């Protein structure tokens, strides 16, 4: 695949309030670098993320969507991320089934102490999506900036 050097993907990262958002904070405090194209949306729990949110992110121009939550077993609400895990597995599998590049979606568990992991995850995800290029298969043409 030809890598477009100019292309900077837009990434939406849903981060749970209790672990991953704090992890992102720590990444900042530690001055770890990760691309500014990652836009974080804070959610109370990874379980709050409705499949519609993921699709809407793509509709509104995201090239990749990542969901970060507490490690399984560490959910602030005890079990939220277990449900999220099943939902996202099925949703991602469905997107793949419809022929949408499966590398555009991801789930990672990032704790409040894992600032470095947060930065590394984002760097790696941005790299993957950059290689894929623009999101064409799940775009809404009306939302493309003119």
């Amino acid at each position, binding site marked *: 695949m030809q890598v477009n050097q100019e292309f900077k993907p837009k990434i939406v990262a849903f981060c749970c309030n209790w672990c991953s958002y704090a992890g992102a904070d720590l990444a900042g405090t530690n001055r770890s670098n990760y691309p500014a194209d990652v836009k974080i949306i804070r959610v109370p729990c990874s379980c709050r993320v409705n499949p519609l949110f993921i699709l809407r992110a793509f509709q*509104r*121009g995201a090239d990749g969507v990542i969901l970060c939550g507490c490690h399984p077993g560490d959910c602030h609400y005890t079990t939220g991320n277990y449900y999220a895990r099943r939902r996202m597995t099925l949703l991602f599998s469905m997107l793949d089934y419809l022929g949408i590049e499966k590398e555009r979606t991801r789930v990672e568990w990032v704790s409040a102490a894992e600032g470095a992991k947060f930065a590394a995850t984002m760097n790696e995800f941005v790299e993957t999506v950059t290689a894929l290029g623009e999101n064409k298969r799940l775009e809404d043409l*009306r939302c493309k*900036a*003119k």
Partner: protein
Amino acid sequence: MKKVSRENLDALFAAIAEAKKLYLPVADGTDEKRGVKYSVWTPEAKYAAEAVNTVRSAKDFFFPQVENMVNFKVNGKKIEVDDIRTECEDFVIFGVRACDAASFKILDSVYLSEPVDTYYQNRREHGVVMTMSCSKPSETCFCSVFGIDAAEPAGDVSCWLTDDAVLMQANTEKGEALLASLPMLEDAADDAAEESKAKTKAILEKLPLKNLSTDSFGGDKLMELFSSDKWASLSEACLGCGTCTFVCPTCQCYDIRDYDTGHGVQRFRCWDSCMYADFTKTAGGQPRPTQLERFRQRFMHKLVYYPANNDGVFGCVGCGRCMKSCPISMNIVKVMKTLGEGNA
């Protein structure tokens, strides 16, 4: 009257397509057997001459399901309006059946009366309709009930299929201009289509629904039909989906919506259905609170309200699409028979 041999039909299509975009019924590309739809003609396209009707009606050409009307750009307190209307390209629709051709008249009476719908008018003016007489009507056909003759289809050009040729008769200036631009057409006797017409008429005589009565309907029957207690049982199984309204060639209701694109607003209109719970919903609520009222609305519109305002012309053309598509097989024929019982 003009004619072209059946071997030359593809050459004729090619000649039309050279000047204008040509649409015609072809078997749906995804699966040979899954219905017929209007598609742009290409040299590979195979005209489905026998198929009595397309799944979707021909109204799509003049009244598409979704249509952008205007764009807005909002900048602080300033709103910029971007009128996106442009002159429509000329196009030809070939193979329209008599029922669909009659439906255009009904749409015209709605959209071309004051205030004129310029979006519709634009398309209507640039479209040439070539109709085709029916050679294999379906058991669900009942156009004759509404005074439509499947052997004499209207349109800018009427066509008839014979064993070896397609005969064409221009009915309007637009139609004549089109035929004059086609060098491969040969002259034919004025009565050349009689045999084909007689064949069609013989089949029409055998249609099971040809004796459906419209006597109990019309603008003057408003109160007795509106208050009929038969609506309850007729509508009890209705799911409230919009299938009948979307495949219907004469259903003309739409909704106007705004879509926020993130950098502006697109105002578009799309088909709406009186079967939906939010149809004509206002701040004051829903005027038709249950499915019974919504169901009644659709058939009252076709059989009573529309004729009341249009010299007794019914708002149905008898194409039979709703009979084939309704998930629970409720349709205008059953409604007419049930309401007509005891009155006829």
